[in-house]
């Protein structure tokens, strides 16, 4: 990366990362633009890992998992939260803005074109039929994604109680997402409250 090194040489800002040189904002923008343009089929996290850990080596595996845990706990999409966190880690606020803007841009343009095309042709019987198939496939996709995430991240059987309470509150009692989030969330956090003598938290 001779051009990165040259860029960093021109930039005499203090290296806050202890890495010797800073990542140029332009590289951050281009990498996130690439991820934003190629991550067809959902599952952006896998594309982020390929680009940021394997290809660029900007963060290591452990940091990546750490940022992902923060992204999943905070509101916001994993993809955009990861962009903000990694962008900030690399180049502060400018890096965060570049990463966020770049990862959104390709999909935004594509969905705008899709939206315009849908308004023009969405009512045609053949299009409606195809989209009925697309929607059915999409529910299979989002359910599979949720099940995989659950298998990976739920540690104990009694986690299922909190999952169940949340689903029941939103889907059956028709409570708003914020109120369910606050009530069940606080219950679950208290359930997992720090306990000093018994177990050492992982």
């Amino acid at each position, binding site marked *: 990366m001779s051009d990165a090194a040259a860029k960093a040489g021109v930039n005499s800002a203090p290296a806050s990362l202890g890495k010797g040189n800073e990542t140029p904002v332009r590289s951050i923008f281009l990498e996130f633009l690439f991820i934003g343009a190629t991550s067809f*089929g959902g599952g952006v996290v896998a594309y982020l890992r390929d680009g940021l850990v394997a290809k660029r080596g900007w963060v290591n595996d452990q940091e990546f998992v750490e940022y992902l845990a923060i992204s999943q706990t905070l509101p916001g999409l994993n993809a955009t939260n990861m962009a903000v966190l990694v962008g900030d880690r690399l180049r502060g*606020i400018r890096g965060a803005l570049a990463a966020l803007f770049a990862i959104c841009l*390709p999909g*935004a343009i594509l969905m705008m074109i899709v939206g315009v095309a849908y308004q023009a042709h969405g009512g045609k019987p053949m299009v409606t039929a195809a989209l*009925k198939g697309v929607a059915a496939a999409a*529910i299979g996709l989002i*359910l599979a994604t949720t099940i995989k995430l659950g298998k990976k*991240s*739920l540690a104990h059987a009694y986690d299922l109680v909190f999952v169940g309470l949340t689903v029941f509150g939103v889907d059956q009692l028709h409570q708003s997402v914020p109120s369910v989030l606050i009530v069940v969330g606080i219950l679950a956090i208290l359930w997992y409250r720090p306990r000093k003598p018994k177990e050492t938290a992982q």
Partner: protein
Amino acid sequence: MTQLVSLLRVFSYLSILTVGGGLAAFPEMKNLVVNVHQWLNFTQLIHLYSMGQVSPGPNMMMIVAIGERVAGIPGVIVVLVAFFGPTALLAFFMGRLWTRLANWPWRSSIERGLTPVSIGLLLAGCLSFARGAVTDRGTVAIAVAVLLVLLISKINPAWLVLAGAIVGGLAFGPKVL
């Protein structure tokens, strides 16, 4: 102008509900954009949302299509700023704080406690979505087939959604032959 204000309010509210993923906000999104503001009907929301799931980048970019539909290019910009602004700011500041709180014992309590809640919110989103998308035997068959293939293989879901479009066109479309 009033539409732009409504877009701003609705999408910044939805933004903070996306705990665990965009799907967590789906039940509220359906209520607000379909029932309250009637910007589009449930079927149209399902169609746009489905296409947004396989488009590259963050999987909620379909909000752009709603912004465009309601108020053109200004609508697109307002929707993007409203939906991504609040959570980006939160991630920026909380990210810095969270890293500093690495040894705070409640930090892992919060992460572990919110995990099952976020999974529950995603499942509730799946259920709300399924009510509009899975309506007869044909759609059940497609949904189950896609689910099973994705659970046992590592195929890119975009191919399965494309297959869904072809099967849907053949099975539910006007008979052309």
